[in-house]
Structures are given as C-alpha cells and as structure tokens.
C-alpha cells in the first residue's frame, strides 16, 4: 500500500514537472564508445544511433573514441536507448556527457534534474557544484542549462541509479 502511494506520488510529480518543462530537453550528448578501433566497423553504430528517437545528427569521432549526438529542436534524445544500441552495434558503451535544459527538483529526498517525461529524470549527485546551483536558484522555479556527466552511482540511502548526473557547469535561464 505504501509502495502504491509512493508510485502515485512519483507519477504526479513527473506529470507536474513535464507540464511545466515543455521547452526542456537534452540538447547534446557525447558518449565514449570503447572498441571503436576499426573505422570500417562504425557503419552500424552510426546507423543505429540515428534511429534513436530525438536524434538529429550523429558524429563518430574515431580517434577520440566518442560519438556525439545532437537532438532535434523539439524533443529529447532517449538516453535510455543509448547503451543498448551501442551494445547491439557490437561496441562497449562508456561514460555519457550531456548538455541539457531542465528543472531542479527533489524526489524522496534525492535531488533530481527533470528534463521531460518520466525517463528523463536524473538523480543529481549531491556535491559542491549542486549546492552552488541550489543556492543560486534560491527556491526559484527556473529552467537551468547544465553540462554534466552521467554514470551509475548510488546516492546515500538510495538504490543504484543508472543515470546519476554530476553537474559540471550550469547557467540559470
């Protein structure tokens, strides 16, 4: 019963966030791809990444071992699809860096960065950079553009989250 109530609260939070953050989106993603040593192998990777919803442009940087994805003007890149797609293409996914616009909130005591839709909520790593942003926002409900990296981490008192966002830079819009 308690779980049901929590789920309902979570859904309500997501809905209200989504309604308020229509212009929020993941604008760009840079993902490390290991095994990208043979350029003639990259065709399938590029093709499959282009098929991800929200992706407008894919650039494969072979020497850097990176792929860069730019999102369409409307809609976000479905980040949850990245790792399975890279694995399906025969490579090993690595760290994800992103530039995204969204809002800061909290869920069950954990700081969250909400972009759009339930799959676009990231747990924020509660560090000095986040505290600085929170202080600058001072409770204001404003859009924020953040640059950060995503990784699987386990915030204190919570389960492991595949997309924990470590904010590196931010601009309050």
């Amino acid at each position, binding site marked *: 019963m308690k779980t049901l109530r929590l789920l309902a609260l979570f859904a309500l939070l997501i809905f209200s966030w989504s309604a308020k953050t229509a212009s929020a989106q993941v604008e760009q993603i840079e993902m490390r791809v290991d095994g990208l040593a*043979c*350029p003639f192998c990259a*065709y399938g990777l590029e093709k499959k990444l282009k098929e991800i919803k929200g992706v407008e442009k894919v650039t494969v940087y*072979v020497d850097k071992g990176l792929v860069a994805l730019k999102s369409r003007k409307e809609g976000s890149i479905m980040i949850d699809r990245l790792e399975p797609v890279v694995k399906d293409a025969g490579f090993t996914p690595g760290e994800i860096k992103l530039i995204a616009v969204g809002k800061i909130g909290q869920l069950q005591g954990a700081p969250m960065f909400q972009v759009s839709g339930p799959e676009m909520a990231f747990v924020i790593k509660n560090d000095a950079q986040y505290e600085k942003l929170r202080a600058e926002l001072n409770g204001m409900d404003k859009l924020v553009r953040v640059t950060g990296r995503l990784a699987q981490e386990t915030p204190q008192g919570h389960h492991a989250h595949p997309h924990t966002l470590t904010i590196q830079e931010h601009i309050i819009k």
Partner: protein
Amino acid sequence: MRNQLIAILFAAMGLSLAASDSLAQGPPINTDSPILLGISGKAVRTFGKVVRLNTLLQDGKEIADPMSRAVTVWAQPLALPYNFTDDFQVAAILPYVNASLNTRGPNFSSSGLADIQFFAKYAFYKRDRKNETFRVAGRVNVKLPTGNEQKTPALGTGSTDYTFSAVAGWIKHRVGVYVEGGYALNTSNRGVNYGNGAVYNLALGYRLLPKVYEKYPSPQLNGFLEINGATAARNKANGVADANSGGTSIFLSPGLQYVGGRLWLVEASFQYPLLDEPNGLQLGTAWTASLGLRLLLY
C-alpha cells in the same frame, strides 16, 4: 600422366578454394577476422584470385619438366553474408572458376561453378578499450561437392569437406594483428580419401593514411603483410597413400586496401611462396595475385 594431372589439378583447386576462404574474411585480405561489423562483416564481397603453377617439384625441389606444364586458375567467388547479430554470421560462397592446363602436348581448360561453401562464425570473446579491441571468433566451414569433377581440369573434388577454425584479432589505433588456425577435415570421393589438413595465418595491418582518423567516414588506406600457410596430408586410395599429394605451402602476402567511404572498399594482394614443398611430384606455385571489392549490404 593421368595421376600427375589429377594431382596438379587438385593442387590448383586447393589453392582456388583457399581463395574462396579468404573471400569470406573481413580485413585483412587473406586472413580471417573475428570482427563482424560494418565492411568487415556485412558486405557482399567478390575477390578475383589468379593462381599460377608452372614449376615442377620433386619433394619440394625443382626439376626439369619435359612437358612444360603450367596451370592457371582464376577463381572469382561471391560471398553473401548474413548477420543474425553482431557476433554471429552465416554466409554462402559461390565460386566461379576458370582453370587451364597448358603443356607441350594437349591443352585443357574448364570453367563454371566450383564447390559452394557455407560457413557460420561466432565471435565469442570481446574486450574493448578506448581505440582498441581484441576479439576471438570460431568458425565452421562446409564445402559441398557442387563443382563438376568430371571436367578437365576438375572444378571440384567431389567430396564434402569441413574446416574448423579460430581467429583472434587485436586492433589498436593504426595497428592490427590477426592470428588464425584451423583444421580441415576432408572426406572421400570415388575411392580417394582426401588428406586432412591445417591452415595457419598471421596478418599485420597498418593504417597508412590518414595518420589521425578523426571523423567517420574518411578515406582510409591500409597496408597488410601476411603469412598464409596450409599443410595437407597425403590422399589415400583404397588405404594406399598417394605419394604425389599433400604437402606444405607458406606464402608471404603483402597487400593494400583502400576504404573509400561508408559502403565500399577495394583491396589487392600478391602472394609469393616462402616455402613450397608439395609431396612427391607436383607443380609448385609461382605466385598468386588478387583483387577484391566489398560492398556493404545493410
């Protein structure tokens, strides 16, 4: 004369089938690859290979040939791969062969579809790092007796043969190293039990251009230096070994490969025998030359 002819023709066919095998490989040119991605896996390939045998050898030593025999085989296989996943591939190889035997006396020639092959390859190990990959694959190859064995020269052995092989490949930045080893399990036809064999290949690849590969796709020129070897046991007829069959050949194979974009590459290779020791009296290989094209299918 008839026995010698068959020995020569089988030697030539063996080499042409080796050419078909090499066709089913990703880069490098004459050695298999464990990487089943992009042009290295999903491309339809054709690979023209010309094999010239014109030196008569007795236990590996050149002797005068009063008949001045020379065999030229042109094999043009077409390989059609299908990837179920990015680590499991099946393929069919349809080889067209034109073979001629010229002597001071009569000349012979034949052409047509040779022995069709099918193979399945599975990449069972992968370790990826930044700009580096190490993969290992296993492969089972089946050769069916579809080539006309009654023609002179014969276009097939008339036997169903199997090859079990493993290949490991390591690529880091501009360098690639591939090692392949396999066992050929051959069956019989018309009372002749073809000798089993081994194949062993080593390939070193180097990206000559560009020095730094920034964005995909960019034109790319690769150089390869390979060592390609095969050893076969003697054939047996009614339990008696044919002295003029089987042996060992090891080739040094330099090659160049140009990747023009997302969808195609061309490649050329020349093979010079480092060691050519067929058993008994057989023709030795003077050289082989190949020119190939791969087009990405899907």
